[in-house]
């Protein structure tokens, strides 16, 4: 048994200090009020203990006191709320230009894919000093990606991508836990996050036996599954051309507008008929059970690279609603203008991501 046990986890990310500061503030508040109450009740119990002849003094209450001890706790809790919300808001906003890593959870292991094509199981290598965004999905049940030293945690869902991000500050090896109960070997779904200096990280990347970049793996899968048969830029294409589609709003057959992000692309592979691009027919077969989550990630990465200008990475949680507010009027206007001649969907930039030629409604 290790007898010199710590009572604080290591601080190894840019957020750790901020979370710990709030924690310490709350520890102080808790200690203060717990001691206040404990001392008061013990003091009263002793000072006003029942002795022969002692009569209690009847006090009915005091509205002023009630207001005081309603308002003060309310004020303190609002401080805690705002403080916690600020940290959370910061944690939930994706960083600009992060290092993007993909993680897949399954009973009972973690698989990670680096953009360079390096793959790891139950270990994740990251550099210090750089924002790292981990996009996560589960192959089966809900898991949770938890790195105590970074103070980050994110439930990993089986139906959509979620992300978490951190900026590691201290080289070292840290626990990676699954914190959402996921069956028999839940406590075996653990691993390590290895934080390295940028130089060490670069040499680690170089030493890895990658079969090619993630995008190139995606390209292979794209061809292997015959996606190119329909999704190609020439005029005979039966599916939308995917060049430049990533990260842009897409108009659907039912006039809705969605954002072509990771979740949309994944859904379109697994449930092709759920959101069909305007101007096309529901002819694509589902690839559910055929293509793995790892391959979907690679294909998505490939599609990202098809963009003429690489789009800024998108918040996977951003909902189409946000896009619709700003983009829909724009798209609809353009559409009205070109209503007759141009039924296919138009991006605001006027690019044509989809080839309308074959499939006019």
């Amino acid at each position, binding site marked *: 048994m290790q007898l010199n*046990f710590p009572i604080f986890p290591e601080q190894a990310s840019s957020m750790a200090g901020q979370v710990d500061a709030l924690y310490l503030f709350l520890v102080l508040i808790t200690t203060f009020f717990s001691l206040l109450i404990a001392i008061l009740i013990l003091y*009263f119990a002793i000072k*006003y203990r029942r002795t022969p002849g002692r009569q209690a003094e009847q*006090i009915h209450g005091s509205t002023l*006191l009630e207001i005081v001890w309603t308002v003060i706790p309310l004020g303190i809790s609002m401080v805690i709320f705002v403080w916690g919300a600020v940290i*959370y808001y910061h944690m939930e906003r994706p960083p600009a230009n992060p290092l993007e890593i993909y993680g897949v959870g399954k009973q009972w292991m973690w698989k990670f894919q680096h953009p360079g094509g390096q793959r790891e199981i139950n270990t994740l290598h990251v550099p210090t000093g750089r924002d790292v965004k981990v996009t996560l999905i589960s192959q089966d049940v809900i898991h949770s990606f938890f790195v*105590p030293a970074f*103070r980050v945690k994110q439930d990993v869902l089986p139906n959509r991508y979620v992300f978490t991000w951190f900026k590691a500050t201290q080289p070292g090896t840290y626990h990676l836990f699954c914190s959402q109960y996921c069956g028999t070997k839940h406590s075996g779904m653990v691993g390590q996050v290895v934080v390295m200096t940028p130089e060490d990280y670069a040499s680690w990347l170089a030493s890895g036996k990658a079969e090619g970049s993630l995008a190139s793996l995606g390209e292979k899968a794209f061809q292997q599954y015959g996606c190119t048969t329909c999704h190609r830029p020439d005029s005979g294409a039966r599916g939308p051309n995917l060049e430049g589609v990533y990260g842009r709003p897409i108009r659907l057959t039912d006039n809705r507008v969605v954002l072509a992000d990771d979740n949309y692309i994944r859904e379109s592979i697994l449930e092709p008929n759920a959101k069909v691009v305007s101007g096309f027919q529901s002819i694509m077969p589902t690839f559910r059970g055929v293509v793995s989550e790892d391959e979907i990630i690679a294909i998505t990465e490939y599609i990202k690279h098809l963009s003429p200008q690489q789009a800024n990475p998108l918040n996977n949680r951003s909902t189409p609603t946000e896009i619709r507010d700003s983009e829909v009027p724009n798209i609809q206007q353009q559409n009205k203008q070109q209503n007759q001649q141009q039924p296919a969907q138009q991006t605001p930039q006027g690019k044509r991501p989809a080839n309308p030629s074959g499939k006019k409604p």
Partner: protein
Amino acid sequence: MSTATAIVKPVMPERHFLNDNYGIRSWLLTKDHKRIAILYLFSITFFFLIGGVFASLIRLHLLTPNGELFEADTYNKLFTMHGVNMVFFFLIPSVPAVLGNFLVPIMVGTKDLAFPKINLLSWYLYMAGGTFSMAAMVSGGVDSGWTFYAPLSSGYLKTHVIMLAVGVIIAGFSSIFTGLNFIVTVHRMRAPGMTWGRLPLFVWSNYAASLIMILGTPVIAITLILLALERGFHIGIFDPKLGGDPVLFQHMFWFYSHPAVYIMILPGMGVISEIVPCFSRKRVFGYSFVAFSSVAIAVFGFVVWAHHMFVAGISVYSALVFSLLSYAVAIPSAVKVFNWTATMYKGSIEMSTPMLYAMAFIGLFTIGGLTGLFLAALGLDIHIHDTYFVIAHFHYVMVGGMVTAYLGGLHFWWPKITGRMYPEAPAKLAALITFIGFNLTFFPQFILGYMGMPRRYWAYPPEFQVLNVLSSAGASVLAVGFLLPLLYFAWSLKYGEVAGNNPWQATGLEWETSSPPPTHNFHEIPIVTKDPYAYGEDAEVTVVH
């Protein structure tokens, strides 16, 4: 008063609800709320002991980091059955179904609950639910966790999830019937003069808990039925492989299960609101604030459920809203704590066993409540969610709070229920042992949680071992504290001193009738002319018991 006036040794009443009738039929077909309370007392004690055995085995297993005692699957079944037994078959019925059943009709001054047959039915449903749950347990156990999260429980586990879910659903109906009975009784059957402003705070808090029972419990039934449909018939509701949404399950589950923690704690708060004035010989401080804070907790409690889901993939904005609302529900709890403390001010305080439990409750509930602020703080919850911090927090509220209140209440009303006193010295000792054992068990878990130890771990990294050993050591002390009352309560049934009508010289209608009360509670329906907790209005009479 200092000079003891005539000391009359109390005698047991000749006829009371316990000897009014004999034989097994007179118990199993009884419509007397007091006898049903006794049936509940025995059955929830049984489930508490089973749940306690599971807890002991969990703590025993966690003595070593590498999971040496049980297989992982066995361990998973242990914490599942511990949670299910304790939450659905002990905590939720504990105070309402035992003490509430016994006391609510007497406290409002009537002969029985509004629907005595439904009250009996509620006990049978509880037993049926318990039977299903026990059947699931003996036929191999269930490893879903008490939270039943989908799609794990609906599509992946091989154990008897549906059988356990059926047990919980059936037990839910018993809870609904109890709540219904309380609400109707409080509205329609109060004695003449028993205005809403004169209701004992125990009745107020059970009334508030009843509102949650009848509004919330149907939702858990629906949720578990949907889960069973998906598991049994592959109807896609929660599992994305079948077209469902797993986060939906969590919304529905917590829509009930968060308010359910207020079903558990509110009646306990009611107990404390009775004990503190009695042993301080004072009116409760701020009666109406304590009463309305119960209702406020019940109402706000319904709009905070997603604070269990801050890392589950909900939107940033809903997380912000639920965090804010969670702080709103904390305020009425704080108001109660301050009012209880103020009630002791300038009292004439007697540290009897119930008062010791009440004081322990105030302290432990304060810690439990304040650590809830940690979990409601968004940026901090990300780190401590699903760790031992959460375990420690809810055990401070549920064991430090609720179980302590239940034990305090049981000691307080034991003379009323049985007509005999428990022995004071061992009872005080048990209270002390429980308090020490409890803190030793659960305080280290706060630190473990912040260190990052996830909950439901069969094996853990070696640096967490010291704190786990401390916690397990505390659990063995706690077990002693919980077992002692069983012994001396049983002893007191035969050897305890006869209590008399009002051994504590407390106010409240239940103390005006005999101990144990007659079958119809009162020989004639009382007329209420005084405020509750009218301590100090009559000269005290010292009774030596």
